[in-house]
C-alpha cells in the first residue's frame, strides 16, 4: 500500500516551493510528493531547508513561490490552524506537553470537551479521560498504567504517544509531520516510537519524518527526500539504496565527484 503502487496519486504534492527570508534563499524550487500509507523521511544537514519545508507544509510559513496540493485540492494556508483544518498536523521534538497536567488534559489541551452546567460550559474531565484511553489504545496500541498522574511522570515514549494521540484525535487527520521524534530518547524508547510510526502508516496516514538518524530512517521510512542547501538533492527508495548513498546525497559527494 506504500509507494510501490506507482499508479496511485500522491496525497501531498508540493510544487516549486521557494522561500526567501530577506536576502536569504532558504528554499528554491523544491518539489515533494508523499503518498498515503507511507513514511517519507526528510534528511539533510543543518540549514538544508528541512524545517522551512515542513513549516510551509504545516502552515507556519507561507511560501514565497510555489503551490501545495493535498488530495488534488490546492491549499492556501495562512496559519498552523488552517493546516490543522486541512488535516495536516505536526508533533514537535519538544512535544508541547504541559507536564503538570494529566495525559487526558494534555491530549485535549486547547480543544477541551465540555458539557453545559447551568448554561456555563464546564470541562468534561471524565469523557476526556475515556476518550484518551480509547485513542491511545485503539490508534496507538498504548495502554498507560494510570491516567491519573502528571504527564511529567510518564516515560519518553509514553509522552510521545500522548502528543501523537493529540494529533490523531482529529478525525480528518491525513498528514502527520514528526520533527526529530527520537532525538531525546534512549534505544528502547526509540524502538517503541518507531513502532508507533509504523502503526500510523498502516492506518493510511502520510507520515513525514524529519530525522538526523539514518538508522531510524532506514528502519521505518519507505522513501527518503534529501535536502541540500535549500534544494532537493534527490529522493531515494529505502528498499533499493544504502545509508552510504543517502549520506552521499546529504554531503553532496556526487556533485564533487
Amino acid at each position, binding site marked *: 500500500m506504500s509507494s510501490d503502487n506507482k499508479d496511485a496519486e500522491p496525497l501531498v504534492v508540493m510544487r516549486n516551493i521557494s522561500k526567501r527570508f530577506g536576502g536569504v534563499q532558504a528554499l528554491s524550487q523544491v518539489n515533494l510528493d508523499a503518498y498515503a500509507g507511507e513514511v517519507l523521511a526528510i534528511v539533510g544537514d543543518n540549514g538544508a531547508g528541512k524545517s522551512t519545508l515542513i513549516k510551509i507544509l504545516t502552515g507556519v510559513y507561507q511560501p514565497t513561490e510555489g503551490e501545495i496540493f493535498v488530495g488534488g485540492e490546492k491549499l492556501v494556508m495562512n496559519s498552523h490552524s488552517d493546516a490543522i483544518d486541512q488535516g495536516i498536523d505536526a508533533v514537535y521534538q519538544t512535544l508541547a506537553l504541559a507536564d503538570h497536567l494529566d495525559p487526558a488534559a494534555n491530549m485535549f489541551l486547547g480543544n477541551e470537551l465540555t458539557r453545559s452546567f447551568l448554561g456555563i460550559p464546564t470541562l468534561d474531565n471524565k469523557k476526556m479521560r475515556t476518550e484518551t484511553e480509547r485513542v491511545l489504545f485503539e490508534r496507538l496500541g498504548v495502554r498507560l498504567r494510570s491516567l491519573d498522574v502528571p504527564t511529567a511522570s510518564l516515560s519518553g515514549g509514553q509522552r510521545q504517544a500522548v502528543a501523537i494521540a493529540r494529533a490523531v484525535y482529529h478525525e480528518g487527520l491525513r498528514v502527520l509531520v514528526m520533527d526529530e521524534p527520537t532525538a531525546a530518547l534512549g534505544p528502547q524508547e526509540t524502538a517503541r516510537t518507531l*513502532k508507533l510510526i509504523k502503526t500510523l502508516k498502516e492506518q493510511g496516514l502520510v507520515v513525514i519524518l524529519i530525522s538526523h538518524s539514518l538508522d531510524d530512517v532506514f528502519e521505518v521510512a519507505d522513501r527518503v527526500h534529501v535536502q541540500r542547501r535549500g534544494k532537493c538533492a534527490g529522493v531515494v527508495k529505502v528498499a533499493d539504496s544504502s545509508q552510504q548513498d543517502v549520506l552521499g546525497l546529504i554531503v553532496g559527494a556526487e556533485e564533487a565527484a
Partner: protein
Amino acid sequence: MATTTHPGTPMKLSERIEPFLAIIGPMVMILAILLFMGVAEPARYFRLSNLNLILLDAALYMPMAMAMTFVITQRGIDLSIGSIAALSSIVMAFLIKQYGFSTPIAIAFALMLGALFGLINGLVITKFKVPDLIGTLAMDLVYRGLALVIAKGLVLARFPDLMTDIGRGQIPGFIPVPVVIGLLTMALGYWLLKKTYFGRYTVAIGSNPEAAEMTGIAVDRYKIYAYVLMGASAALAGVMLTGKLNAIQATSAPYFNLHVIAAVVVGGTSLFGGRASMLGSLAGVLLLSMMINALVTLRIEFFWQSVASGVVIVSSVALYTWLQKKDRDGAKGFVAGLTTPESLRLLRLCGLIGGGLLLLLLIGSLLSGAPVASG
C-alpha cells in the same frame, strides 16, 4: 495491530504522596501549632471566642488567596493587592458617606473598581511587557498614592449595618458571615480550577508557556483574567476589612501582599508555576491566621508577625523545592556537600562577614563612652 503496553516502573512512595503534599505540609504545621498551644496556652487559645477570632481573620484572606493561587500558578505575582483593597474601599466609603450612594451599589462599584485595577495590572504585564514583579510593585505605588490623594489622612468610619454584617456579622448558632463569604470564594476557586477553561489553561500556562501558546491558547487573555479575578478579590477583601473595622483609611491593609503570597505558597502552590492547590491555599490561610493568633495569645510583640511571615515563606519554598528535587545522585549528604571547594569558599565568606561584625562590636565596646540619649 500490535499492542505495546508500556511497562512502567511501580509507583514510588514519593510519587504516591505527591498529590497530597500540598495538604500534608500545612496540616503538619497546623497540628504543630495546636500541640504547642495546647501545652503553652490551652485555656486562652482554645476558647470559642478566640477560635472565632481566628476564623474572622482567616476569612479576610480567603478571597485573595483563592485568586492569588491562579496568579502564582501562571508564574505571575501580584504585589498591588493591599493598595487595590485600600483604594477600592476608600472610593466606596466616599460614595456612601459623601455622595449618599446606597450600600449595595457602592459595594458592587468597589468590586468592579478592583476588577478594573486588576485589568490594568494585566494589561501592563501582557501588553506593555513589564515584568509582573516590577509592574505590580509600581502599580502598588500608584493605587496607594491615589488612595492617599483621595482620603488624605481621613479615617472614614461608621457605615450602614450591611457593611458591618459583611465584615463581622454572625449567623446565630453558626459561623460568622465573612467566613461564609470566604469559604464560598474558595469553593468558587476550586470549581474554576478543576472545571473551567480558565483553570485548565492557568495550569497549562504555568506548566509550559510555549506549549500553551502552540496549542492555540490565548495566553495573554487568560493571564489578564487571573489579574482581574485578583483585583476583584482584593476589593472584596477591602470591603470585608471596612466592615470588620467599621472604618477605612488610605493606609489600611499594608501587609496583604506577603501574607497572601505566604498562605498560597505554604499551601503547596508552586512559585515556579504549574502546580496549584486550592485546598492547600485554604489550609495556608488558616495556618497563617492560627500562627499570628498564637503569637498574640503568647503576648509576643506585634512586630514579630512580619518576621514570622517572612520565615514561613522562605522555609516553605525551600522545603517544597527540596522535596521536588528528583535527582539526588551525587549529593552524598549535607556534610559532604559542605566540603566541596565551592562550599568552602562560601563558608569562608560567611566567616569573614560574621567575624567582621564581631570584631566591630568588640572594638566599638572597647572604645565606647557614656550612652547618649537620642533626640
